[in-house]
C-alpha cells in the first residue's frame, strides 16, 4: 500500500468507539485494511510504517485473540510492542487506573491499546495520556475493531454492506460487540436486527436503530448475515436464561434455524465460541461460516487502525 492513503484522511487521534465515526471514516479504515491483507499474505509480513514507534497493549481483562491480533498487527508494521496484562482484581478502579495511565504515559509510548472490564474506562484513560488510544473493548460499551473487522469480512464476501439485513443474536445486554456493530452497520446502511430473550436485551435497544425479535426463527427470516454472540457461562443457569439446554433449543444457531435466513446467508461469531450453547458445531464449521476468516481480517483491520492513527502522531 502507499503511504498517501493513510495520513490526514482519518481525522481522529483515538479510536475509542464506532460512535463518532462517519461512514467515510469507516470506509477509509476498511479500504486501508484491504491493503493490509496483502501484507499478511506475503512471505515477508513486514512493513516499516511504525518503525521506531512504541505500542503498549494494556489489558485489564484476560484476552487471547484480541491481544494476539493487536500484537501481530503492531509487529507487522514494525512497531515495538509491549504486552501488559493487569489482573483486574489487583486494580482498585478509577484512581489506580489513572495512576497506571500516568505511569505509562511517562514512558512515552505512541499507541496504547486498552481493554478494561468497566464501560468508560478507556475514555478516562485517553484523557490522561498524550498518545493515541485504541479501545480493545470496555465493559459492555464498545469494541470498535471487532465491528470494523466484521464489516470488512462482510464487505469482502457480499461486496457491500448497504442494504444487507444483519441479525445479531444472543446476549445483546452484555455485549460490546453488539453495540459497536449496531452503530457501524447503521452508519453504512444495513438493516440491523437483534434477536434474544428479553432478559438479554438492554432496555431501549429498539431506539438504537434496530428491529427487535425474541423469536429466533422470525428474526432470522430474510437475514443475509447472522452474527452470533457468546453467552457467558455464569449467565446460563437460571439467572438470565433457564439453562444451556433451553437456550440452545430456542436461541442456538443450528441448521434448522439457519434455514430461515436467506439462502447463502453468512454466519459470524466474534469468538470464543460455546459450541452447543449459542451455535451448533456443524454450523460453526459449515460452508456458510465466516468465523475463521474473521480472525484473519482482525489482524489486517488492526494494522489499518494503527497506521491511520500513527499518521497523526508527532513526526507522523
Amino acid at each position: 500500500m502507499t503511504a498517501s492513503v493513510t495520513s490526514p484522511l482519518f481525522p481522529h487521534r483515538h479510536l475509542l468507539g464506532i460512535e463518532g465515526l462517519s461512514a467515510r471514516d469507516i470506509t477509509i479504515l476498511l479500504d486501508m485494511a484491504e491493503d493490509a491483507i496483502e501484507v499478511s499474505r506475503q512471505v515477508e509480513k513486514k512493513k516499516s510504517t511504525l518503525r521506531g514507534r512504541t505500542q503498549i497493549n494494556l489489558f485489564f481483562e484476560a484476552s487471547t485473540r484480541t491481544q494476539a491480533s493487536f500484537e501481530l498487527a503492531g509487529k507487522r508494521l514494525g512497531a515495538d510492542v509491549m504486552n501488559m496484562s493487569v489482573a483486574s482484581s489487583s486494580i482498585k478502579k478509577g484512581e489506580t487506573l489513572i495512576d497506571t495511565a500516568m505511569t505509562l504515559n511517562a514512558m512515552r509510548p505512541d499507541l496504547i491499546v486498552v481493554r478494561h472490564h468497566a464501560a468508560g474506562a478507556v475514555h478516562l484513560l485517553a484523557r490522561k495520556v498524550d498518545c493515541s488510544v485504541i479501545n480493545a473493548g470496555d465493559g459492555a460499551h464498545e469494541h470498535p475493531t471487532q465491528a470494523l473487522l466484521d464489516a470488512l469480512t462482510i464487505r469482502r464476501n457480499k461486496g457491500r454492506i448497504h442494504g444487507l439485513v444483519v441479525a445479531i443474536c444472543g446476549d445483546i445486554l452484555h455485549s460490546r460487540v453488539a453495540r459497536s456493530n449496531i452503530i457501524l452497520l447503521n452508519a453504512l446502511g444495513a438493516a440491523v436486527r437483534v434477536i434474544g430473550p428479553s432478559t438479554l436485551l438492554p432496555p431501549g435497544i429498539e431506539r438504537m436503530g434496530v428491529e427487535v425479535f425474541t423469536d429466533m426463527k422470525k428474526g432470522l427470516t430474510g437475514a443475509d448475515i447472522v452474527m452470533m454472540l457468546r453467552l457467558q457461562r455464569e449467565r446460563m443457569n437460571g439467572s438470565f436464561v433457564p439453562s444451556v439446554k433451553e437456550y440452545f433449543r430456542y436461541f442456538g444457531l443450528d441448521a434448522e434455524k439457519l434455514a430461515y435466513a436467506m439462502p447463502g446467508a453468512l454466519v459470524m461469531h466474534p469468538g470464543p465460541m460455546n459450541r452447543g450453547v449459542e451455535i451448533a458445531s456443524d454450523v460453526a464449521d459449515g460452508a456458510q461460516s465466516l468465523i475463521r476468516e474473521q480472525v484473519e481480517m482482525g489482524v489486517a483491520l488492526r494494522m489499518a487502525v494503527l497506521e491511520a492513527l500513527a499518521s497523526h502522531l508527532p513526526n507522523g
Partner: protein
Amino acid sequence: MSIAPPLLVLDARLVDPATGTERMGDLLAVDGVIAAIGTGLSGACPAGARIVDARGRMLAPGLVDMRAFVGEPGAEHRETLASASRAAAAGGVTTVVCMPDTNPPIDDPAVVDYLVRRARDTAVVRLIPAAALTKGLAGREMTELGLLREAGAAYFTDGAKSITNAQVLRRAFTYARDVGALIVHHCEDPDLVGDGVMNEGELASRLGLHGIPREAETIMLERDLRLVRLTGGRYHAAMVSCADSIAVIARAKSEGLDVTCGVSINSLTLNENDIGPYRTFLKLSPPLRHEDDRIAMVEALAEGLIDVVVSDHNPQDVETKRVPFAECADGAIGLQTMLAAGLRLVHNGEIGLMTLLRALSTRPADILGLPQGRLAVGAPADLILLDPDEPFVLDVADLHSKSKNTPLEGARLQGRVHMTIVEGRVVHDIA
C-alpha cells in the same frame, strides 16, 4: 383412554356461566365434546348412546380448580393423583391444576411429562401439573419455562412459596413474557410472616398465637404488580385474603395490566373465628382473616375484581396436623367440598349462582387458555349434573381424599353433585 360412547342428557336446566344464560333442554356429547345443545334431541340420539334423564336438575360446566396440592410424587401417603381425582370428581371438579411442591419438585420437563402420563393412566378427571418458577422452588434461578411449557405445564408458580428476590422475579417475568407463560405467585412475605400462624389481631393475641399482618400479602402484591408494570406479561395472584389487596388489584386492572387473581374457598366462606379452640384444620396460608375481609372477598368476587375461586386443596395427615396449632402444617382439603361451600354464599344471598359458577369454571379455563368451562358446541364435554338445593351433612367417611383434614367436618351443606362427566365419560354417579 378410549373414546367414550355418545352421551345424551335429557331434560336438564342448562346453566352456562360463559354466556350467563340458563334454559331447559338437552345436551348431546359425542367423542368427548359437546355435539349439540337444544330441545328434542332424543329424536337424534346416536346408536349406542348412554341416555341420562336429568329430571330437571342443573347441568353446568365441570369446575376448573387452578390450585391443588396433591403429593404425587413424594407424598403418596397423603394423596395420589388417583385419590385426588376421585375427590375432584365427587366435588364436580373436572380439571385440576396440581402444585409443583412435590418431591422431587416439578421443575424439570421430564417430571412434567411423567405427571401428564401418570394422570392420564390413573386419574378420572383432568389433572394438569403447574411447574416450578424457580429451580428446586428455591427462589433463585428460573426454570426451563419454555421447555416445561412445551411438556405441558399449565403455568409457573413456586406453589406455597413466595419469591422474595425481586431481581429473580423481574427476570422470570421478562422471560415468561417471551414464551407466553402465565406466572402465578403466592403473595406472602416469609419475613413478615415470621413466626405468625394466624391473622394478626385481637383474636391471635387472645389465643397467644403470633399473628400474620395483612401487609405480608399486600406489600408483596404491590411489588409484584410494579414488576408486571415494568416487564409486561401475564400475572395471576394465587390467592388474596384481605380487603387491602382488593384495592391493589383494582388499581392494576384499571391500568390495563394483564393481571388476575384468585381467592381460596376458605377465605370466602370462613373467618378467623372458625379457628375456635385451636382447630388445626383451619390453619391456612394465607390465614383466615377477619369477617370484614371475608365480606370484602365476596364483594370483590361479585364485582369481578377477583377472577377465580380455588380449592387450595392441601392434604395433610395426622403427623402434620395432630400437633399444637402453632406447630402444625398449613392447609385443608377442599376439592370435594368447594362447590357445596361456595353454594352456601348463594343460599345466603351473598352472591349469584352464575357469578359463583363463572369463577369456578369459565374464568379459570379462560386464564389457563383451556376450551372447557362453558356449555357450547365444540367445547369439551366436561359437565356436572347437580341439585344446588339438596341438603346433606358432610361425613368424613364420604371423603375420597386420602387425607381427611377438612374444615367442614359435620357441616350442614346444600348442593349435591349427582353426576360428573369428563370428556363425555361419567366418572362420578351417586345413583
